[in-house]
């Protein structure tokens, strides 16, 4: 017989509970601020102003948001198929290699050709790095959770080797490539607007933000309006039912991971092609891991992911401004806050649910018994 089934109204599940979790995370964050002798209220004020209060701050916020949209979507696609891909770091790292391999030799081509090629390069290399864990999961049952962790480290070793020994220009001691030719720089949003005669604040925000939004819409359509998405979701919700229904789980596992890896790879469009304009070490900077939290907070729905990505983007930019304003606060504080948000909104997401469920019980009850 069916167990006790508790249905909460959607706005509670999707809105109220994440909000309460966030508040809890910020309360603990305040304690950390107090511990280092800073006023939490003043700090939050600086962070909010830094993230949204002026044009270029907002630009930076959306620049970081772009990263989080990509990695959040990447995690969510795999998650819908029942796969815990925590290898976005490594996949994004390799995506950077893909971008560089297009932008370095082909930078002389017109932009309209370089950009699509770079998109393909990022997707291809990100997906390729996801392929081996995907294949091992599909054919040999090796858990992607562990293999993708391992692949993050393998990616890191590989990239250090390439940047130190192969890709850095002769005579340079810096482990990074030369700067791409101008045609291989993604246009910055303020330049685009300037071209239209509109003056906006300078920031590294570039066209990949639009690409991220397009990806969100495409992923939403794919997941809920195509047969492929339907199959991925069945696989995630009930793998035995997927087999029963004549789907091919190994194939679906690989497809989900390839899409996930490609989306992770797009992170490099923003960071490498949009902002740094050269390939360098450690540009993934933990964005891949934060993507997990973004996806969980966004309830693995592209719309929710965009909102959660803005939150994390604001946190990132606000935190950067805060550490600039207050020498006592380092950029590591951002990492702490992110960690706390991951803890409360991710790992402890059910903490307040029973209490909230009790509040709402009886009013919207939908369970039916035999």
């Amino acid at each position, binding site marked *: *017989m*069916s*167990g*006790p*089934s*508790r*249905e909460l109204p959607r706005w509670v599940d999707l809105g109220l509970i994440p909000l309460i979790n966030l508040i809890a995370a910020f309360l603990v964050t305040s304690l950390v601020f107090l511990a280092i002798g800073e006023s939490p209220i003043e700090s939050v004020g600086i962070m909010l102003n830094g993230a949204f209060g002026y044009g270029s701050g907002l630009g930076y916020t959306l620049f970081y948001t772009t990263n989080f949209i990509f990695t959040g979507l990447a995690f969510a696609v795999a998650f819908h198929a029942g796969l815990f891909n925590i290898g976005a770091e490594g996949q994004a790292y390799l995506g950077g290699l893909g971008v560089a391999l297009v932008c370095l030799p082909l930078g002389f081509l017109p932009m309209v050709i370089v950009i699509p090629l770079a998109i393909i390069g990022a997707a291809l290399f990100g997906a390729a790095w996801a392929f081996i864990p995907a294949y091992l999961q599909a054919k040999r049952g090796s858990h992607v959770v562990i293999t993708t962790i391992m692949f993050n480290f393998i990616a890191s070793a590989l990239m250090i080797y390439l940047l130190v020994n192969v890709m850095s220009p002769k005579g340079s001691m810096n482990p990074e490539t030369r700067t791409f030719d101008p045609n291989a720089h993604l246009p910055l949003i303020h330049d685009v607007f300037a071209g239209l005669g509109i003056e906006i604040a300078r920031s590294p925000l570039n066209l990949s933000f639009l690409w991220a939004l397009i990806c969100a819409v495409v992923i939403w*359509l794919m997941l809920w*309006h*195509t*047969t492929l998405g*339907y*199959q991925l*979701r*069945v696989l995630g*919700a*009930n793998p*035995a*039912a997927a*087999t*029963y*229904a*004549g*789907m091919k789980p190994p194939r679906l596992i690989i497809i989900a991971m390839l899409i996930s890896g490609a989306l992770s790879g797009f992170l490099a469009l923003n960071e490498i092609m949009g902002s740094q304009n050269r390939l360098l070490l450690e540009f993934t900077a933990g964005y891949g891991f934060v993507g997990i939290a973004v996806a969980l907070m966004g309830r693995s729905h592209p719309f929710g992911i965009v909102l959660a990505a803005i939150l994390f983007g604001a946190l990132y930019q606000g935190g950067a401004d805060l550490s600039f304003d207050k020498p006592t606060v380092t950029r590591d504080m951002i990492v702490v806050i992110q960690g706390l948000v991951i803890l409360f909104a991710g790992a402890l997401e059910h903490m307040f649910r029973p209490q909230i469920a009790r509040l709402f*019980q009886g009013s919207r*009850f*939908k*369970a*039916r*018994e*035999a």
Partner: protein
Amino acid sequence: MASTKAMAAPPAIALAHIDKRFGPVHANRDISLEIGKGTIHGIVGENGAGKSTLMSILFGFYQADSGEISVDGEVTRIMSPTDAIKAGIGMVHQHFMLVGKFTVLENVVLGAEGGFVLNSGLAKARRELERLEKDYGLQVDPDAVIDDLPVGLQQRVEILKALYRGADVLILDEPTGVLTPSEADHLFRILRQLKAQGKTIVLITHKLKEIMAVTDRVSVMRRGEMISTVATADTSPEQLAELMVGRRVLLRVVKSEREPGRTVLEVKNLVVKDASGTTKVNGVSFVVRAGEIVGIAGVAGNGQSELLEAITGIRPPSSGEIRLNGKPLPCDAAEARAQKLAHVPEDRHRLGIVTSFDACENVILGYHGDELYQKGIFQDRRAIRSDTEKKMQDFDVRPQDPNLRLGLFSGGNQQKIVLAREIEQDPDLLIVGQPTRGVDIGAIEFIHKRLIAMRDRGKAVLLVSVELDEIRGLADRVLVMCGGDITGECAPETPEKQIGLMMAGAAA
């Protein structure tokens, strides 16, 4: 009988006004019950009647919202299994509570190790097991690893676990579901022996025959309520069935004579192995023709599941041949559906539905690639919805809300959705496993009628059920499976005892 004398003493267990809710579900309503010392007490009821919940409360797994439990005449608070074990109550769960990688001995001592260092405790347990073996005829090798033991022996370990902890009251929850008739008989012998030694046994089951065979008294539960408690000698299976359901039950299904037509399914020398490489289906051959229902009877776990999985393309057979409408059928569930084979799976929750999806998305499961549901590269949401509404109406699914999550429908309504999905595809061959498992009585009759209607429309139906009555009521021919072989074929009118012999492996 000894039990009449024992009744004078305080009852071994007395439950007074036990009440328990799980959210909206009122699982136990004001239940009072006395279980006499040294008796075997049966508790019967349909799925969801609240038997297991009641026993879980007695064993301390759940706490009642209100009510009282007395053990040997004394009010006892049972807040956890530890309390229950201390009070001398042991439980043999339907799904065994054993650690598969541990040995018998390690499983027996778990939670009663007798000291921080295991050595002495294990030695003591070994001696104690030898004694229990002698007293009750419960032989098991103490050093065998659980995963290597057959189900019957695993169950014996569960009983030993309870006895090792000094249980005077032993609760058994649906103990025979996984046993062959002869294993079940052996279990009953053990239970009688335990009773003779003064133990009290509570037997939860939905099989009336077992109640009649082994119990002294029997209590009937229905929809969370205790309906009646009677001496077994004073009642009959018919009377108990009526009490369980609350109205007269038609045990017969009405169906007309029909001449079967051409061969639809042909299975030849089919061998199927499970994941661990054990042969589960051992060279089976049979045919199913248009316009007939072929029933496969047998105790659960004798290869029926693997047979169905092989035919429906879920599990590749290791050798043999399957032909549908004369054409070889590859092992591919999607291809099987394309060749007009429909499948209502045995284990609905595991295979047939996705409980977190709404009715619409469950109605297209397996047929998600159909053109009807597509519009260009996208799914046609409107077509899916109207199709779902139509199917829900035709099969009287309640509530008729295509956007409700499937987990929120009752078992019977979930099964109707599965049946609607499979039958409305107008297949040539319908494969049905355990069609009425976990389904309420009203829905059972509905489902049976639909299956008969399929047959009357000239379709071939292959039915697997562990409920012998269901097979005998629906099938035109009965095949009996035991140990991976078809041990006999007979008419549904064949006496139950004879079919039972075939189920145990004896030749027809």
